[in-house]
């Protein structure tokens, strides 16, 4: 059977789509190894990274197996979280065997076995009751059916009911799942992929509905309150009737509700037993996290290192350690409390081409909170400015999101709301006014994302920050780029005096007159804006060749200021843009 790259790409795109539709369902099952609610997102992002970086060339005939190898490699480099890493290891193992282009049922059997072995041996602490169990059972069951069928897709389709049964037994294999009342999220995601592969899922297939974990825990706690306070059977019965919605995917909670109903009808178990189960359920979703930071790195090195060398080095620094090698590229995943030390230790061997540190504690708090945010993306570079013109300018310079706050600076509550609305796991935020910084820092502590604040004091410095931004970088490199490649831009602003004042030279400024301010000092004053700009330029210009006017909302429109100034100062190039800022009539930059 021959499959070309376009066909494999199309299958992978559909699989990604299947996962995307079930992302939130999978997030709601995520309790192992850490209940941070991102299994669905991690698996989806892993597939997405590989899809983005493995685009088949329409002009060149590339065999499917070659594409698959490349896809697996990019999956490994772009893998996110434990489930993403295990999935990419599996894909690597499968693609290795299929690299000869033999897609026969027997050969696929060997590929599935190799996929499982690649995933199993690739991680330091393989655990039963997880995605690994489902991967193993797939190749075993497939092996049993291979004598009956010749079509690999058909065999996989026939294996799915059995795998679902195995998935339903994962809580018996992994106590933490049983305590939390869920099946394994990674295993569930793997079966969704298989369903997609066997085309059981089509576009009309409905997503699995799942009540958010915080709602389920709320039901659990309300029940606890009613039972603890010895409320009447009638009141508890009414709560069970009214308060319980459908789509409870936590078996433990289903069992608690069932037990309570039996208790209300005079049967066993005793109230104390039910309360114990309720407490168990709560604690399983809210454990003490031993390690706070999920750290992922990609190391490029030609130094003589192997997986074991890195594993030995990092073993003591945390848990959930996975080190994967693809010739000179290593992908490292670890849960740790000392991410900087991990980065330092790994960096000695070569260059880090990717790094990511997720605060799992924050993610976990978000996951179980009443107003949890469903993360939709890995990062957002978020700017807060006054002026609709500047909003457009910054978006076109590489900002992912911009808030135009108009005349009134945003409150802490508004900032929290805006940051949460971004639905990004990691946010880099910068504002155009130092006065916003304090509120911003407080808002960051209340937000649901990992947020880095870049300290800036004007919209012009935001433009300078975005100049060095290359885009498509991971969160740490983006912060590095913005800080290290920052291009300082000299500027002054023109405003109208709301009270009498004076310039640094002592010239009196009457109320209503214009003045130019540079680095907090009033340099010049006057009645005509363009004449004021010209005289200020004559004082401040130090050989710059480009002067840009950013027009504020209060400045007269259609002045063609740049044109007028160009005629007066022909040695300089003038440009003019609408900024829409409210505080100043003009920002004037010198570059």
């Amino acid at each position, binding site marked *: 059977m021959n499959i070309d790259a376009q066909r494999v790409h199309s299958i992978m795109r559909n699989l990604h789509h299947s996962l995307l539709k079930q992302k939130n369902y999978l997030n709601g099952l995520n309790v192992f190894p850490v209940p941070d609610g991102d299994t669905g997102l991690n698996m989806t992002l892993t597939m997405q990274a590989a899809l983005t970086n493995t685009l088949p060339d329409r002009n*060149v005939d590339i065999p499917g197996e070659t594409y698959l190898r490349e896809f697996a490699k990019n999956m490994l480099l772009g893998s996110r979280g434990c489930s993403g890493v295990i999935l990419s290891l599996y894909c690597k193992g499968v693609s290795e065997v299929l690299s000869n282009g033999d897609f026969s049922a027997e050969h696929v059997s060997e590929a599935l076995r190799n996929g499982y072995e690649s995933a199993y041996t690739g991680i330091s602490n393989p655990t039963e009751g997880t995605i690994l169990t489902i991967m193993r059972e797939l190749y075993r069951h497939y092996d049993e059916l291979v004598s009956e069928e010749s079509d690999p897709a058909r065999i996989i389709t026939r294996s799915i009911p059995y795998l679902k049964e195995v998935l339903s037994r994962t809580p018996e294999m992994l106590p933490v799942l049983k305590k939390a009342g869920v099946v394994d999220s990674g295993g569930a995601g793997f079966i969704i992929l298989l369903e997609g592969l066997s085309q059981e899922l089509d576009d009309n297939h409905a997503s699995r509905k799942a009540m958010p974990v915080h709602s389920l825990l709320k039901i659990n706690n309300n029940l606890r309150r009613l039972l603890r306070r010895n409320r009447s059977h009638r009141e508890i019965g009414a709560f069970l009737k009214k308060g319980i919605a459908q789509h409870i995917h936590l078996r433990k909670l289903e069992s608690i509700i069932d037990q309570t109903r039996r208790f209300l009808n005079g049967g066993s178990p005793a109230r104390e037993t039910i309360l114990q189960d309720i407490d168990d359920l709560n604690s399983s979703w809210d454990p003490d996290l031993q390690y706070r930071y999920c750290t992922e790195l990609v190391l490029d090195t030609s130094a003589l290192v192997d997986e074991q060398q890195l594993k030995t080095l990092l073993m003591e620094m945390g848990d959930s350690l996975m080190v994967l090698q693809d010739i000179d590229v290593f992908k490292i995943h670890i849960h740790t409390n000392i991410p900087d030390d991990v980065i330092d230790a790994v960096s000695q061997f070569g260059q880090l081409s990717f790094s990511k540190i997720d605060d799992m504690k924050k993610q976990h708090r978000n996951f179980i909170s009443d107003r949890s945010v469903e993360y939709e993306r890995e990062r957002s570079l978020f700017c807060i400015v006054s002026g609709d013109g500047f909003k457009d300018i910054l978006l076109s310079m590489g900002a992912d999101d911009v808030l135009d706050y108009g005349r009134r600076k945003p409150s802490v509550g508004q900032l929290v709301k805006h940051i949460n609305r971004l639905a990004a796991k990691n946010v880099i935020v910068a504002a155009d006014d130092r006065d916003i910084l304090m509120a911003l820092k407080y808002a960051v502590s209340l937000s649901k994302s990992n947020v880095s604040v870049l300290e800036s004091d004007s919209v012009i410095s935001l433009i300078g920050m975005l100049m060095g931004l290359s885009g498509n970088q991971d969160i740490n490199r983006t912060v590095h780029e913005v800080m290290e490649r920052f291009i300082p831009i000299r500027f002054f602003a023109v405003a109208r005096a709301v009270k009498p004042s004076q310039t640094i030279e002592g010239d009196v400024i009457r109320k209503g007159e214009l003045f130019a301010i540079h680095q907090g000092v009033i340099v010049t004053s006057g009645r005509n804006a363009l004449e004021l700009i010209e005289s200020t330029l004559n004082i401040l210009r130090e050989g710059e060749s480009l002067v840009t006017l950013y027009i504020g909302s209060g400045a007269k429109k259609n002045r063609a200021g740049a044109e007028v100034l160009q005629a007066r100062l022909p040695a300089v190039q003038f440009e003019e843009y609408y900024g829409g800022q409210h505080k100043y009539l003009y920002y004037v930059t010198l570059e």
Partner: protein
Amino acid sequence: MAKILVIAGDNLGIRLDQIDYPDFRRVHFPVIVEDSEYIEDEDHSFSWLLAKFRDDDAMAKSSCLSREEIIEVVEANLEGCDLIVHVLMSSGMSAATYMIAEEVKTLYEERIPIINIDSRQTMCGVGVVLLRLVEELKTIHDPEEIRKTAQRIIENTFMFLALPDLRYLQRGGRIGKAKAFMGSVLKIIPVVGMKGEEVEGVILPIGKGRTPAQANTLILNAIREGMSKRGVEKIKLAVTMSFGDNPEAIADLERKVRDSLPCDRHVSGEPHLVEAIHCGPRSWAIAVSFA
């Protein structure tokens, strides 16, 4: 003494007389301008094409290297030759050219060994790889050693390009990840680059300046980042080139490099017809290679 023939396309960003190697032969990238095909000659140079862009708003594109021309060069030099080294532009940018070179290699495998070197570069980036390699070929003759040396040079070579008008790169189908720089509200000078350490060998966005001086500062900082990552303190070879109309920009860059970065050798290169297609007027570039 082994005789090693070196072949490369005419998109090197340097003049022939700057290549100090007697057994070097150049092959041409055909250029299609308004449905007619040209190869570079005295009448059809980069400045001719820039004038066509400026005066006629002409559309141009490039084609891959001609199999026949490569074979012609190989045939003409077979006698007495022990090895052929073909230095190619990035296969990530021209897969077809690389495939043709591989076909020629297979065609001659019984008669002469050919090493195809994917430089992961274009323009003066290929020029830098070539200049450094021919220097090494004066003392290294073993094919395996040549491969390893070339790989080391490639991984340590970077090219940066300031493009006041990105449309040329887009029209030529080479924009790649630099498309992130399209659609800016402000007039900007995008700085893009090719990094030898990146296996893909495609154009990468680096940053953007509003003035040539800012673009050059970005380039300088990017070079410094590369040096600091590798722990090197010196540039082994730098090649600069400019597409005319912008002499201050390239002069500013050369001055900045001279004043702040130690460099063993600097070559002031020259663009060719095929290079003008993707860069357009007023652009400039530098390629550097570290020891």
